[in-house]
């Protein structure tokens, strides 16, 4: 860490969070978030147009507050990084337009980066440089992927991903079935603490299929069936037990496949990122299984797991350090940017 490391402004607008982060190298200087979640909650999911409108409203105040928080002026910024995809097309476009204008206005380089790679890169703000290679388990509202990461700034390889629902999506859907608010992940996490993970034996999709892919849609349906049967028989639904048993099924598969990936590629470092990495049971079980397998586990603190601008700035700082070619002002926002494209 040094004074001469570049100061990078990171902009994230792929979903409902307007995130603005500022880093100097791998040192976090500011991480400001404006969320439109309250406006989406009653719809039971993120409404793209509502999110896009909110990003436009929130961008300027969020950038100003990040600069103020870091004690910096605009002229101190050396580079601008922005999530170019994947995510909601209209939402991404607001962040990309802002980032291009900041880069153009300040006369500094622009880096359009991959949101998923940023979820991996963010851990360096807390735990220092990533070992090369590392295995990353990325679990969020929109993605569940296992990645081999030889170098987060240039080379990310997909080993497997969900064939249907993302893990966070399963948490959100099951929460609805249990009458818990959206987004459901944190509520299930909390409810599960009072219940038993072995109360109901829910199915574990693709458990022994030898791939590094996931499937959570059958599990979600099984939970709904179980709850409906319970209601039909007039018995109360044991919410805590159902939450704990569902959660156990998810984290069992996630950690099992993550460690299989480590073994298969002979990698001794596992990183978990994305919103679901905030899950307390996932963190605990991953630690247990990593300890048993002699794998070092890295999980960023919950505030860095969910979408934020610091993760984008962190990856931007890696790109600057690696001498990557800056993006042009012509880059598009790409809602389905593949994980293998770290920067555009």
């Amino acid at each position: 860490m040094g004074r001469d490391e570049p100061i990078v402004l990171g902009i994230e607008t792929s979903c409902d969070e307007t995130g603005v982060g500022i880093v100097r190298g791998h040192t976090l200087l500011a991480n400001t978030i404006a969320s439109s979640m309250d406006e989406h909650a009653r719809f039971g999911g993120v409404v793209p147009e509502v999110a896009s409108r909110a990003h436009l409203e929130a961008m300027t105040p969020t950038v100003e507050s990040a600069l103020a928080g870091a004690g910096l002026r605009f002229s101190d910024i050396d580079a601008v990084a922005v999530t170019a995809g994947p995510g909601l097309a209209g939402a991404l476009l607001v962040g990309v337009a802002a980032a291009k204008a900041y880069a153009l206005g300040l006369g500094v380089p622009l880096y359009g980066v991959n949101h998923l790679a940023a979820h991996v890169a963010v851990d360096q703000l807390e735990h220092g440089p990533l070992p090369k290679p590392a295995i990353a388990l990325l679990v969020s509202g929109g993605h569940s992927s296992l990645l081999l990461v030889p170098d987060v700034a240039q080379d990310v390889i997909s080993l497997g991903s969900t064939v249907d629902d993302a893990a966070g999506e399963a948490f959100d859907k099951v929460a609805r079935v249990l009458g818990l608010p959206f987004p459901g992940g944190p509520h299930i996490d909390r409810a599960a603490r009072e219940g038993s993970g072995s109360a109901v034996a829910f199915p574990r999709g693709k458990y022994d299929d030898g791939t590094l892919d996931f499937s959570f849609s059958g599990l979600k349906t099984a939970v709904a069936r179980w709850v409906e049967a319970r209601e039909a028989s007039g018995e109360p639904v044991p919410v805590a037990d159902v939450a704990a048993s569902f959660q156990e099924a998810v984290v069992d598969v996630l950690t099992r496949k993550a460690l299989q990936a480590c073994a298969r590629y002979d990698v001794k470092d596992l990183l978990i990122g994305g919103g679901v990495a905030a899950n307390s049971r996932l963190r605990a079980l991953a630690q247990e299984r990593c300890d048993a397998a002699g794998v070092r586990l890295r999980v960023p603190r919950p505030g860095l797991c969910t979408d934020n601008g610091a993760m984008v700035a962190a990856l931007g700082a890696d790109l600057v350090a690696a001498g990557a070619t800056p993006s042009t002002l012509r880059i598009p926002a790409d809602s389905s940017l593949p994980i293998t494209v770290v920067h555009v």
Partner: protein
Amino acid sequence: MTFVLVLAFDTATPAVTAALHDGERVVAESTTIDARRHGELLAPAVEQVLRESGATLRDVTAIVAGTGPGPYTGLRVGLMTATALALTAGVPAFGVCTLDALAYAAEESGPFLVATDARRKEVFWARYGDPRTRLDGPRVDRPHDLPGELPVIGAGGAMYADVIGADRIRGPLHPSAGALAALAAGRLATLSEEEAAEIARVPEGRVDSVEKARELSVLGPPRPIYLRRPDAQVPGTPKRVTA
């Protein structure tokens, strides 16, 4: 006379258009018609008009963006760009109704309508007494609900010529940033510095920019005129998986 250099652009229609105006004339302009690539084309267009006129952002004294109404995704690109450029350059950003810029470029002597494509078989429109005076709108309606008889400027008329009547259709089809800049520069010249600062200040929270735009007529804050609520439905109880 104080030095004036207005950077204007509009992304509320299929035209991605940017221009620089020095208070007397348009010194550079760039327009591309491409309804799907506003996000890709605008920043390079801004860079290009600056380069062509040998100016830098530091020379710009005001930034003006079309506030629509227009398809939202493209519209936001222009407004976000204006606000963000203004923040880095330390100059005020203003908004001008896109339909006003189209009206300003019209060669009509009597009253007329301006209409642009609102998608979903509707048009955004407004009624003008002359190229500088909006009398009604902006609104969003089906083309056959436009008030009868008056000439219609803009692509929203031309694309529904069969409904509106081919004899009523007039150009231009799309707004130009040159007209937008000229309109804004003219209005800015009549304002004191305090008045200009008051308009440019983006109000806290959500203010209905339609009202604001009407009240201030030509120059307003750089905020979008949406005219439609987001599509979203509050879900019922979760669907049962068992019969």
